[in-house]
């Protein structure tokens, strides 16, 4: 109340009172406390990462106490629960790469085609409808896509191309196709953003010189947006490598060391999900194996993510 009166007196112009203090009327500990709380929430994300690394690292160290590092990385037989057990990760690593590659083979042309159409050809009205619908596709739970692959895609493809499904209903190629469906909106959305961020002046200059729409899209806009487009592909690849439910349902469970799309394969993610759901005791070699495979998966996706983040940052810096 006193403060108010002082200020009031100034407002009225005349009074000969001493000027009010410029020092804080209270130390405002609350503000500092709030800032501390907010900062600790942000730091929680760092703790999460640390926890992930620790939880992967400790059992992985135990694992390599029993299994040789080269036996793991370069061994060609994967049978961790058999006697005698074999811990060669190559079959499931190749399984992961195989399903991801088949997925990308489908998703890259479809995703980039959609992106070019959205950013260069679509009318604002069409865009306003198609983009959200694609986002819905991105939001469909992967278990649903997996079921679609298992119950629909697999029999249909087996009927048309029998060589694609050796052991019905499981197939690396069909799993890849289902994953690809899920990757299309990721590629389309990020690449579309990158291409739309290309300054309009560049397009107009090209049109002004009489270029066709196709040439503007492929030779002007596409190259200018290339870092964002590559980022979208890398992110999609990282999602494919980390995808679990689709491969669990469609790819089968046989650790075959092959890139054959018709073969059934076991991926790293499927191995983790399958093994961890069973009844396993902490500290057993099977338990540690889950973490060793998890560590490899984490490192792979981390490298891809950091690469993608760098690229995205680059194109945002250029245009914003």
């Amino acid at each position, binding site marked *: 109340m006193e403060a*108010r009166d002082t*200020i009031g007196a*100034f407002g009225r112009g005349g009074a000969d009172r001493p000027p009010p*203090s410029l020092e804080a*009327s209270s130390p405002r500990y609350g503000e500092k406390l709030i800032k501390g709380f907010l900062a600790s929430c942000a730091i929680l994300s760092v703790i999460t990462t640390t926890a992930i690394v620790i939880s992967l690292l400790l059992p992985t160290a135990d694992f390599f106490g029993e299994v040789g590092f080269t036996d793991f990385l370069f061994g060609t037989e994967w049978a961790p629960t058999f006697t005698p057990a074999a811990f060669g990760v190559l079959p499931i690593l190749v399984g992961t790469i195989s399903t991801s590659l088949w997925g990308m083979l489908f998703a890259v042309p479809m995703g980039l085609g959609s992106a070019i159409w959205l950013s260069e050809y679509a009318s604002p009205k069409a865009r306003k409808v198609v983009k959200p619908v694609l986002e819905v596709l991105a939001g469909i739970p992967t278990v649903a896509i997996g079921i679609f692959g298992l119950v629909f895609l697999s029999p249909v493809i087996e009927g048309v191309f029998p060589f694609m499904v050796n052991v019905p209903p499981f197939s690396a190629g069909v799993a890849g196709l289902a994953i690809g469906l899920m990757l299309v909106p990721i590629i389309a959305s990020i690449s579309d953003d990158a291409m739309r961020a290309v300054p309009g002046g560049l397009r107009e200059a090209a049109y002004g010189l009489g270029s066709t729409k196709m040439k503007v899209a492929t030779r002007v806009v596409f190259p200018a947006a290339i870092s964002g487009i590559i980022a979208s592909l890398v992110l999609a690849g990282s999602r494919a490598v980390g995808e679990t439910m689709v491969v669990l349902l469609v790819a089968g469970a046989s650790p075959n060391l092959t890139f054959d799309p018709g073969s059934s394969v076991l991926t790293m993610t499927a191995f983790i999900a399958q093994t961890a759901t069973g009844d396993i005791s902490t500290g057993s070699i099977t338990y540690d194996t889950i973490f060793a495979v998890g560590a490899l998966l984490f490192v792979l996706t981390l490298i891809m993510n950091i690469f993608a983040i760098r690229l995205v940052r680059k194109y945002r810096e250029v245009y914003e």
Partner: protein
Amino acid sequence: MVGESRVKETLKDRAPEEQSEQAGLIQQISVREAAPTEVDPWAGEKVFDLEHVSVSYGSSLAVNDVSMTIPKNEVTALIGPSGCGKSTLLRCLNRMNDLIPSARVDGEVLYHGQNLYGSKVDPVQVRKLIGMVFQKPNPFPKSIFDNVAFGPRILGLGDIDHRVEKALRGAALWDEVKDRLDDNAYGMSGGQQQRLCIARTMAVDPEVILMDEPCSALDPISTAKVEDLMNELKEQYSIVIVTHNMQQAARVSDKTAFLIVEMDAAEGNRWGQLVEYDETDRIFTNPQDSRTEDYVTGKVG
């Protein structure tokens, strides 16, 4: 850079017209000067004392070595070409420059003898006493009433309804909005929005109101209303206004400071420099510095 050269161009375009207005102004003023001056215009109380104030962003200097006093209950104008640092200078008077992490203020800004940048000074307390109106009207996305009531509420001032009405009346806005106080402020015209921002500032009873080109986004009619308002406001408040419009400075201010852009051709640096600070009448009729004369007569811009 682009913006600056454009401004220069438009100023040049307008130069002849401006000059003729200037001539009229000079006549007016010389008539007034004929009457004997009874009071020393610098004798009154002062709010700010700037002593060798320099502002820099990171390693680049923005305003160099400004010393001036700003009187109480008058309108003081800062004029000069764009890039001369007049807005920067204004924003050090209520520590809005603190929001830019790299900004640094050297020298002393004394407010009633207290250094605004003293170690114990709280910028929040400073801004309660020294309000600010911005270049672009920036009402909050709330109702008209809540816009004005926001300040009194957070400062814990009582009798909100009365304060809001008084502030809106003070800003000559009450009659236009009294029937739609609950409407969103975004529905108002630009000029109304700017007067709302002035009302918002008045509602917390500051001693000083800083105005950063308050009319640059407004049409001539709205501008005239805001200018009329300033003339009334100076009875209660001390006002410092930045403007690039010389006629506006001549119309509304009692004192005028003229800043220019200095350039170091070798390094490519530019910074603002105070050239002349005097009564507005003298700045426009009888400037002491030839650069001021060139600027106010429209020879350079």
